[in-house]
């Protein structure tokens, strides 16, 4: 990834090459999530526990979202509101 960042930085003006990057990232992500899906599909433990895993995922999301918005509330109040 570091190599990629440096290369990307050097290639900033080579628009033709850069144009290939975004669609290629999409293809790579599609491929990987497809493969992740396959490995989930053949994994019986995961399939049998999909509902439990989903509930846990939502609990973690709830924690992450609430935690960050509460902190954002105070940071906004203390550092940002005065400028409005």
């Amino acid at each position, binding site marked *: *990834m*570091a*190599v*990629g*960042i*440096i*290369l*990307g*930085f*050097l*290639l*900033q003006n080579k628009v033709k090459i*850069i144009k290939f*990057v*975004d669609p*290629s*990232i*999409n293809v*790579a*992500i*599609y491929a*990987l*999530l*497809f*493969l*992740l*899906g*396959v*490995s*989930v*599909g*053949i*994994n019986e*433990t*995961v399939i049998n526990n*999909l509902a*439990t*895993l989903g509930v*846990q*995922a*939502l*609990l*973690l*999301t*709830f*924690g*992450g*979202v*609430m*935690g*960050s*918005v*509460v*902190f*954002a*509330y105070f940071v*906004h109040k203390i*550092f*940002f*509101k005065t400028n409005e």
Partner: protein
Amino acid sequence: MKNSLIIVGFFVLGILIGLYNLLPKIFIETDFSVYALYILMFLVGVGIGSDKKAWEVLKNAKLKIILVPLTVIIGTFFGVTIMSLFVDIGLRESLAIGAGFGYYSLSSIFITKISGEALGVVALISNISREISTLLLTPLLLRYFGKLAPIASGGATSMDTTLPIITKFAGKEYAIISVFSGIVLTILVPFLVIFILKF
């Protein structure tokens, strides 16, 4: 949103094919996903490096804008730490899942590689629902938690998928902050996830 649907579609298709054993054995025995992951990492790197607008935003940002992604990181970890008491997942893994900040594709791929499919699925669902809840709850979050709240909730997605809704409700002057926070978090996701799981 269209992109998210395509991604979920590929994931579900993969599950079905795996479930019904439709794939030739060689596919399962050879781990193609490692190579795909290397290519993806390289491409993400090129994408970040070549994004002129992103570098521009980073360069011109006022110092206190750094507080925003920092707040998201600390707040997310704080909330996830509390929730990890209520789930069947260890603190380290919970933090790694939280460190996806809504960047579900990349984070779930890494977590699958390092910690296995079960946690990868949790990461995928958890981070997709972070994006979806930001899309749905922005007006509500704004009213109760101020104008930075939807940016915080959006995490890494506040630079693209959730940016329109954030700008619409928080106002144009928050667009730069939103993009900045999203870019910083997006860049940090792979590093944080790996760091948390490996150290």
